[in-house]
């Protein structure tokens, strides 16, 4: 014990709040490797989210529905604005776009199986449509991305809907990234690329720029598919009011709005953590935009980015969304980050629940990899069943809340059913702070 400790007692070392251990580790890593950190998933920082909202439930002025007896409809129709064949889903929870390439063929098949069992849709990604995925997906949304890997009119016509991807929540303004480790022979062939290269997809579409061009592109896609398929437009949450207005102007049937918690297969950490806004902050602006144009519930709004539970689903719908999409949660349901592989996660320098190096292709769970030994670990039938279970549970949870609010349809949930727990969430969602009638900014 030195003299100072004798005099004053133990003085603990004081870490910097600015240079915290993650910031220091990142500086050291950048200096040592000469490359920015690339990872999968969405933002890991704490941002305002659905947890900052609460339902009020029924009481003296409203009466609830019996939880296990009275009907609470969960179905949703997407794409009735212009498409001859809109999609009807049994539940308002869809599977977000994830590519074959980023995911194994088994994982894609499992997503299709699970979505089919639950009565909802799944979505292709930046790698084209695989026969397994089409075969196992009752309702398949085909993404139309800047890269157009594997894009062809036959697959376009096999799709049930077309999703034009402008951006995604993890990286609004960024393109796809699939590093060499995951460019297997089959992935390379589907993308018309050499094996083993770092594939960095374009961030802009090659043949249209801006909403006026997009209107013509949508016309072309409709002409290509006989005006049958709903056209979705996916945007990363950044300027939702104007982006949604432009999407409506361009002729979209459905707008998919993805917040910064939405996952990506691989992107720079700096992009994931610092570009785009949380989904909670985007929904009301998007809904307002639709309402101002007289298109709310006519152009459907699908929101995504951090949807985990039925409470999240119910809150998103109450704020005005027509459906939600899950990506990260769906992968977890399949078996991603399963603690049974803890030893292997530790060997990769991480732990179950934190593994996000999806781009490296060494996923012990066999989901975000093309390694045949690892992919064989995922049983598509069993994993599909697990996903269906999860989707049904969160739908049931949402129904439980809706009935408690006296709603016979999930879509009858409304902002009036909600309050905010924090001033920030109240301002973002234009809901009153709990226990008050105060809506900041209004």
């Amino acid at each position, binding site marked *: 014990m030195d003299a100072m400790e004798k005099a004053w007692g133990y003085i603990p070392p004081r870490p910097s709040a600015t240079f915290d251990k993650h910031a220091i580790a990142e500086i050291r890593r950048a200096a040592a490797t*000469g*490359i920015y950190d690339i990872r999968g998933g969405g933002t890991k920082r704490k941002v305002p989210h659905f947890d900052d909202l609460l339902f009020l439930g029924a009481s003296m002025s409203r009466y609830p529905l019996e939880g296990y007896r009275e009907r609470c409809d969960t179905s949703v129709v997407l794409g009735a604005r212009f498409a001859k064949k809109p999609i009807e889903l049994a539940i308002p929870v869809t599977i977000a776009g994830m590519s074959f390439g980023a995911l194994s063929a088994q994982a894609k098949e499992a997503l299709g199986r699970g979505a089919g069992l639950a009565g909802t849709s799944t979505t292709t990604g930046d790698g*084209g449509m695989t*026969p397994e995925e089409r075969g196992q997906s009752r309702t398949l949304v085909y993404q139309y991305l800047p*890269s*157009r890997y*594997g*894009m*062809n*009119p036959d697959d*376009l016509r096999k799709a049930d809907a077309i999703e034009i991807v402008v951006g995604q929540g993890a990286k609004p303004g960024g393109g796809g990234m699939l*590093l*060499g480790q995951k460019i297997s022979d*089959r992935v390379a*062939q*589907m*993308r*018309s*690329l*050499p094996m*083993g*290269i*770092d594939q960095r997809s*374009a961030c802009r579409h*090659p*043949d*249209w720029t801006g909403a006026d*061009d997009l209107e*013509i*592109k949508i*016309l*072309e896609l409709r*002409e*290509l*598919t*006989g*005006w049958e398929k709903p056209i979705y437009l996916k945007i990363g949450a950044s300027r939702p009011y104007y982006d949604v207005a432009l999407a409506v102007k361009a002729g979209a049937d459905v707008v998919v709005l993805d917040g910064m918690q939405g996952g990506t297969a691989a992107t720079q950490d700096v992009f994931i953590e610092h570009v785009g806004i949380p989904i909670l902050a985007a929904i009301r602006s998007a809904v307002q935009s639709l309402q101002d144009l007289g298109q709310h519930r006519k152009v459907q709004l699908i929101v995504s980015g951090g949807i985990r539970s039925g409470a999240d689903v119910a809150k998103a719908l109450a704020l005005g969304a027509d459906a939600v999409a899950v990506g990260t949660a769906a992968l977890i349901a399949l078996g991603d980050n399963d603690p049974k592989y803890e030893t292997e996660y530790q060997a990769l320098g991480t732990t179950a629940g934190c593994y996000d190096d999806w781009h490296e292709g060494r996923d012990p769970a066999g989901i975000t990899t093309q390694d045949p030994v690892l992919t064989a670990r995922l049983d598509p039938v069993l994993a599909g069943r697990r996903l269906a279970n999860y989707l049904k549970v969160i739908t049931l949870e949402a129904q439980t809340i809706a009935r408690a609010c006296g709603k016979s349809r999930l879509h009858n949930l409304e902002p009036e059913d909600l309050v905010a727990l924090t001033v920030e969430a109240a301002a973002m969602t234009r809901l009153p702070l709990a226990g008050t009638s105060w809506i900041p900014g209004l």
Partner: protein
Amino acid sequence: MNQVNIAERSPRDLREFRPSNFKREIDLLTTSLRELNEMLQGLRNDTARDEASFRVTNPDGAHALAVGIDAPLDVEIAGHVGYYCGGMNKWARIVIDGNAGPGVGENMMSGLIHVRGDASQCAGATAHGGLLLIDGNASARCGISMKGVDIVVKGDIGHLSGFMGQTGRLVAFGDAGEALGDSLYEARIYVRGKVESFGADCIEKELRDEHRAELFALLRQAGEAHRVDVSEFRRYGSARKLYNFHIDNTGAY
């Protein structure tokens, strides 16, 4: 499953193509875009030759004309067309007797699209197969993200042509604008005139006999083989230095 060669077959040889003398005339003043496309898309490979030839009049710059055809039809469009003419074409021979707007032949899979005038931006964008022949000039980003198509431009090509070209061949009889072949993958570029500048990772490569032969065969398909000397072209391709990320290459972008 091999999906590289999703283009069904090589482009027609223009010289050998003998369209029917009978062409059904479709006037876009009295026929809607939807009616035209629905009819063309409804025809299949077994369509009789006399029923597979069309002359479309009064296009007046309409967009999305003759898109998504899935049969060896002969479609002549008498006039200028707007965006995306012949988009995702399979099998058909589409002749545009005028200028073409942006994205002519976008994502075409096979067949032949012949623009007798000039083409706007993004001609042949992301196209997987077939031949796109442009008698005049092509504007910026000609062959952007091309995935197997052959593009022959008898005039100049604009800036960023061949951007992120994956496979296929882009040929210009005239000059190329700035940033030719930026971020090129394995597409091959032949330019007879001068190149304003190269994009990231695009370099000139030696034009050897095998390349002259390849170019001659391609020009023969386009019906242009004996009109230009293939030795006058220069060959450009990817230096492949940016295929895998390295921090010391960031200045290249």
